[in-house]
């Protein structure tokens, strides 16, 4: 028997996660791999547009697919445990186990059906776009010590403003320019009330969401419905195919045949991930989020930096809001963000307040969302409601430390004023 005492707390959590994955794999093996009476075949499609053909489609018998992949998942989990035992990172084992589990599940769930794999992944990326923008906004705020629950409101404000302005001017570019400003306006309220008037930030974020929902609903009914032709019939961006890259098999259509908003997203994530850890601004931001008193003592104006960062965060999530209107359908719909701001918050927490973590979590949640709609379209008998719960359940598991402990920046949400002891 392994002695758990010789491991650090983090390693013990990794082992716990791997054991859960192993159990899932064994469950999948016994439930789908052996007992599956269906001899139907599962077909995975890989071709979406006119990318270079590597493979067209891949047909596998449902039972043997489930059998092979769940065995692979079990092997992945076991190799992960071995890696931890040798004091090495089990990331590869976890990834192998996770992906194999999913593929095994798909083989079983889509028996006799066709799964457009590339299309599903492309859809996942699109669903993740507002989540990525939102979680980056939350990241900048919370890393500098201000809780941002108003992501939902910022996204909605961005969506509304860009949709209306694009409709009035008939130009998408104006919509794209106005969206960040709308988000920043909400941020201005957040920053003013949180930093200048020291209002509780959770209450504040909540109230700002209500305010934006109320205002946009009101204006939607009052102007956008009766005068739809002028106020709510904006154009939307078309896809830009990046030469060569967009023709790469599988990843081409997923990543390089998108609208300008998606390319801006790549850029913004890269900038944030770089500057948070490699620039003076990043160091200062993290300092005021973790230990504002120490930051103050070396001459950083804590509240000024926080104020600026909250505004920048608003620019980011406002731009993300533009995805809903000019980035996809063009027109604005009542409460069209539908809780994306809260899933973005969940992604931020699930990603442990790190840019890459939040990005991965947002992509994962986008995938879960798209998986459930794909499965319900091809007619799989799993209640879609349970699939939709996945991001929320995952977040609860993450914050309660069942799999890896999440720690927020130490001074997150605490108002700072000089000379006031914490």
């Amino acid at each position, binding site marked *: 028997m392994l002695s758990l005492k010789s491991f650090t707390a983090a390693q013990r959590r990794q082992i716990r996660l791997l054991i859960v994955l192993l159990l899932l794999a064994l469950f999948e093996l016994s439930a789908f791999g052996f007992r599956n009476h269906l001899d139907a075949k599962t077909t995975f499609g890989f071709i979406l547009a006119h990318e270079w053909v590597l493979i067209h489609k891949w047909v596998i018998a449902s039972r043997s697919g489930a059998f092979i992949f769940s065995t692979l998942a079990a092997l992945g989990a076991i190799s992960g445990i071995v890696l931890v035992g040798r004091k090495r990172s089990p990331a590869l084992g976890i990834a192998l186990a996770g992906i194999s589990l999913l593929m095994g599940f798909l083989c079983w769930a889509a028996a006799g059906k066709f799964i457009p794999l590339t299309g599903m992944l492309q859809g996942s990326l699109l669903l993740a776009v507002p989540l990525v923008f939102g979680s980056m906004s939350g990241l900048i705020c*919370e890393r500098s010590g201000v*809780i941002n*629950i108003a992501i939902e409101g910022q996204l909605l404000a961005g969506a509304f403003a860009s949709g209306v302005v694009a409709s009035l001017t008939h130009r998408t570019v104006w919509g794209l320019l106005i969206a960040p400003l709308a988000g920043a306006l909400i941020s201005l309220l957040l920053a003013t*009330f949180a930093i*200048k*008037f*020291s*209002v*509780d*930030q*959770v*209450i*504040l974020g*909540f*109230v*700002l969401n*209500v*305010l934006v*929902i*109320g*205002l946009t*609903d*009101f*204006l939607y*009914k*009052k*102007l956008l419905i*009766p*005068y739809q032709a002028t106020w709510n019939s904006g154009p939307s961006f078309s896809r830009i195919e990046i030469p060569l890259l967009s023709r790469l098999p599988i990843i081409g259509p997923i990543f390089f045949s998108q609208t300008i908003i998606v390319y801006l997203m790549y850029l913004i994530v890269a900038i944030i991930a770089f500057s948070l850890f490699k620039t003076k601004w990043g160091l200062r931001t993290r300092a005021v989020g973790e230990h504002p008193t120490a930051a103050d003592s070396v001459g950083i104006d804590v509240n000024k930096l926080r104020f600026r960062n909250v505004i920048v965060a608003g620019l980011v999530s406002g731009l993300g809001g533009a995805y809903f209107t000019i980035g996809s359908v063009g027109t604005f719909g009542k409460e069209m963000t539908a*809780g994306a701001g*809260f899933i973005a*918050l*969940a992604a931020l*927490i699930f990603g442990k307040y790190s840019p890459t973590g939040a990005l991965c979590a947002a992509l994962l949640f986008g995938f879960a969302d798209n998986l459930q709609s794909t499965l319900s379209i091809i007619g799989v008998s799993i*209640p879609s*409601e*349970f699939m*939709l*719960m996945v991001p*929320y*359940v995952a*977040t*609860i598991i993450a*914050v*309660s*430390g*069942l799999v890896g402990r999440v*720690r*927020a*920046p*130490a*001074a*997150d*949400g*605490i*108002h700072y004023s000089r000379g006031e002891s914490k």
Partner: protein
Amino acid sequence: MRKSSDRILGSALLPALSFLLAFSISGFVIALSDSKVLKLVGSPGKFLSTALSTVGNAYLALFQGSIYDPNLARGHGFFQGLYPLSETIVTATPLILTGLAVALAFQSGLFNIGAQGQFIFGAIAASYVGFHFTLTPVFHVLLAVLAGIASAAVWGGIVGLLKAKTGAHEVIVTIMMNYIAGFFILWILKTTTFLRHGRIDPIAPEVSQSAQLPHLAGPNFRLHAGILIALATAALVWWLLNRTTIGFRFRAVGANAAAAKTAGISVATVTIATMALCGALAGLGGAVHVLGSEYALTADIAGSFGFDAITVALLGRARPLGTVFAALLFGALRTGGRTMQANTTTPLDIVLVIQALIVLFIAAPTLIRYIFRIKNLKTQDAMKSKGWNG
């Protein structure tokens, strides 16, 4: 004498000024988004008078729809004119209970955003007992209400348990659990147990007569005994908080968890108990709503009762009596807003703006002090920031 009247004036001044500001700003929004008003921008006099009359009509309809409607009274007597008021109370009833669920949590230093999910579970359980069993009248109501309370207490208790055992922040957990509850009710209404026979749209069977709460003012009014339950519960919560050891422990943990711990109070127990009790309160709200006015469970049963509860508790400064008044006020805004939307060109959603602004201003007394140049504005126990790790 003088001192106490000063105090009342002082504590009423902040809400009063916040109201004034909120209604004024919303008035601007109503006027400036009106196409009739906007067309008159050229002539300032007409512009101003049309703007004022638009806003005036909207607010008048808001009042008529929530308190007293002379048009109704003209045909059927004064009593019928109060029909809007009875509707206000019907809307306020679940709001009082969900508001208490948030207020009680504030008193223990917890922020319960989960009233929505707790309400849903209360409604599901009460509805199930209500339509599935055949029992004697009084006993049936009692059992249905208790089922609602119990299931929501468990749902809320999970949050407390997670917070106490693992430190998971209740705000994040309750936000997530609201979504889970929302999807759960969508799913359960598709199951054969809950789906009404012969229907495809998500609606459960009506609860049997024996499980319905009695009407209070005859069959013409929807006013039901739920308001009595809500008021009694508010009194009970006041008593619990101010006259019992348990309540003292709750408030002690809310005021300073570290000090309470030093004094020998188990913070973990208080956290779990508070969240379970809050769940119970919101669940009672759900049960009362189903058994008193809706009778049948639908996917949208919770409306925004759980979310409005937060603004209600904030406006009521987390006190039971304040919460009752705040719930009545927001109930009136909601009910009147429907009439306003039907009779004028002003959509109901302006009510959300008014609510948000009121709470925003009340939460920022410094701003009110600055705008109105008041030196000593009474502000008590502003909800203090604790942060995610607190």
